[in-house]
Structure formats: structure tokens, C-alpha cells
């Protein structure tokens, strides 16, 4: 390699290194703002002022969903398996919304500790499988439950289907 090329290679290397370092520093500094949602435990522990717009993320607690038969109003609890936050919402829920589903509620916390959402989004996990497999798992009682590590759950899925 000629000296000119060596020099150019060094410059290219420094360029990539410099940009990466600068970005890494910026991202660490911005870390809190990049987070899309916060969990119930953080709301319980943290000092998020009432009325501030937040995105609350967690699972819909089992047995907590109650729908008003006359309107679109619905209340449910969002849990991270440690704390629960009651949520009210008036609108159309995404198709994936159900108990045990990951959701993100966009809204604000009222003084009484109830989270008033103006938008509810559903999250889904990264697992894809046919319904028969899922039914077999449910029969075997191996659906994901609070407290069970995800890795164990996935191992059960694989064991069931191989």
C-alpha cells in the first residue's frame, strides 16, 4: 500500500470512529428522551407531574377490562407484574387489544391516580406461530404468565412443537 493510500485509509477510519463516538455520546445523553414509554413502576416511583403527557407501557392485567355497554368507554389496569395503574379510555381499541396483551396508552395521569388515555396502541411480541401450536401450548398450560421469564416461555414453545 502506498503512503498516500495509507493516509487516506487512516482518515476514513478516523471519520467513522469520530462520528460513532459523537453519536454514542449524544445517544447516552438523550437516553431518557429516546424511550418510547414508561412502565407502571416508574409512575408509582417517579415524580411524573399530573397532567403531563406520558406514554404508559405494560400488559393489560387479566380480568381487569370492563367495557361500558352504552359507549366506547373502557377501563382496564396496565401492569408490569409489580405495580398496576388503572387506565380509562374512550375510543376504538386496536384489534390486538386483549387481556395479557402488551399495550401503550398515551395520555396523562389524573390527581386520583387514574391514567386518562386518549390513544391506546397494542404491542405484540416477536413470536410468530400457527394457531394450532398456540392452542396446544394453551392446553398444556404454557401460555406466558406474569413472573415467567420470556426465555423459559420460548423454550416451552419449542419443546411443545418439535
Amino acid at each position, binding site marked *: 500500500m502506498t503512503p498516500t*493510500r495509507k493516509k*487516506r*485509509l487512516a*482518515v*476514513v477510519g478516523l*471519520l*467513522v470512529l469520530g*462520528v*460513532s463516538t459523537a*453519536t454514542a455520546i449524544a*445517544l447516552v445523553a438523550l*437516553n431518557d428522551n*429516546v*424511550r*418510547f*414509554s*414508561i*412502565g407502571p413502576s416508574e409512575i408509582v416511583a417517579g415524580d411524573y407531574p399530573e397532567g403531563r403527557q406520558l406514554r404508559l*407501557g405494560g400488559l393489560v392485567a387479566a380480568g381487569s377490562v370492563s367495557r361500558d355497554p352504552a359507549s366506547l368507554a373502557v377501563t382496564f389496569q396496565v401492569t408490569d407484574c409489580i405495580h398496576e395503574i388503572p387506565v380509562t379510555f374512550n375510543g*376504538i*381499541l*386496536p*384489534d*390486538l*387489544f386483549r387481556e395479557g396483551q402488551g399495550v*401503550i396508552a398515551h395520555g396523562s395521569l389524573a390527581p386520583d391516580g387514574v391514567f386518562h388515555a386518549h*390513544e*391506546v*396502541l*397494542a*404491542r*405484540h*411480541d*416477536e*413470536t*410468530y*406461530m*400457527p*394457531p*394450532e*401450536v*398456540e*392452542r396446544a401450548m394453551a392446553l398444556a398450560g404454557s401460555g406466558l404468565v406474569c413472573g415467567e421469564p420470556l426465555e423459559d416461555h*420460548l423454550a416451552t*414453545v*419449542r419443546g411443545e*412443537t418439535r
Partner: protein
Amino acid sequence: MIWKTLKVGFHRLGSPPSFYRFSTLVSPWLWAGFALCTAIGVYYALYVVPPDYQQSDSFRILYVHVPSAWQAMAGYVVMSILAAIALVWRIRMTEIMAMMCAPIGAAFTAICLATGSIWGRPMWGTWWEWDARLTSMLVLLFIYLGIMGLYAAFEDRRKGARVACILVLVGLVNIPIIHFSVEWWTTLHQGKTIRIFGESSMHYSMMPPLIWMTIAVKLMFGAALLDRSRNELLTQDRRKGWVQKKLIQEELK
């Protein structure tokens, strides 16, 4: 011995007439491979594979969304390698090829964003949210467009390519951000399904179309890259002797 053959072959590809011949010969085969793999992949994706337990048939969007997303990122890595070679060794063919990666990568990024949005509407309940994964992917599209714009802004193509190659390397930092965004931050987008190391969270019966479509878009990237580079080469060298000779040859046929 093998190394030497490779090196000679590489140098030969660097010469415009050889590249022209090579791309004319290879590109139709890549397109044919793409068509075949896509036909098999789409058939499996829409007819054979069972619906998902949670998302039903909407998960079939995955088979165009995910391969496009992977290719948008892999294409960027290819472009960066070409750009680095172009900057250090000043090989004109790598400059041209690096620049021609951008419109194809932008196309795949656009497919990824559009199909992701269409998928998000029924499943998440929103077309768009500013979460880290979605935003970093949108940034990738802007980087691709920026590279294309910068390259086009220069009268001198070689100068334009060199300046744009620097932007390519600057933008490379976005690729790990896209990849790790779902791990580093809480996002609306779910985590990784397919893992190269370790087990994937996708049932094996759903894998074949994903593999076919991934191969298909890789072949397509190669084919489109050869086509575009050949055109760009022809445009740049239109006054040169080898192009004039080629024209006369083709006229005689």
C-alpha cells in the same frame, strides 16, 4: 494462487469495458433468479404458511417487510464498503457502484416503511409513531436521499462521488442504531424475531417464505446495482473510445 486469480479478476472488473461485459452477462441471470425466488416465496407466504396465532393473516406482510428492511441495511453496508474502497484507492468503478447503491437502498427503505405502516395500522392501531426503530429507519431513508442529492449536485461526477462517499461513511453510524434500537430503548416495535446466533422466535413452519424472499431481494439488489452502474458508466464515458467502439459493434449486429 486463488488469491491471485481473485485479485486479477477484481482489477479486471475495475476496467470499464470488462465491467460492461460482465454486468451485461450476469444481470439477466440475477433478475431471473429474483423472479423465481419471489414466485416461490410469495406462493408460500400467501398460500402455504399458516396464519399467526395472534395477528392472523396480517403477519404475512412480514414476508415483504422484513426482507426489505434487511436489504435496506445490508445494502447500506455494501455501499459503505464500496465507498471506503473508493475513497482510499480511488477506483472509479467502486465510486460508481457505491453511488448506484443509494437509489436501490432507498427503494427498499421505502418498501419497509410503507409496508410497516400498513401493518401497524390494524395491529398496533397507528400508522406511525415516533419510536426509536421507526424514526431511525426514516433517518436511513433521508440519508439515502441525501447521498443521491449530493452526488447529483456536482457537475464533476467523480468529485460528487467522493464527497457523497464521505456522507455514506458518516451515515453508517445509523445502521447499528436501527439494529439495536429495539434492545436499547423501549419501543412500540417488537424485538428481534430472527437470530443468526441462537434460536429464532418464529415457528419453523413459517420460515421458508422468509428465506426465499430474503434471497430474492438480495439477487434483486445485485441485478439492479449492475444495471444502474452500467448505465452510469455509459453516461460518464459516452465520449470515450471504448463506448464508441461498442456502439459500432452493436450497430453491426
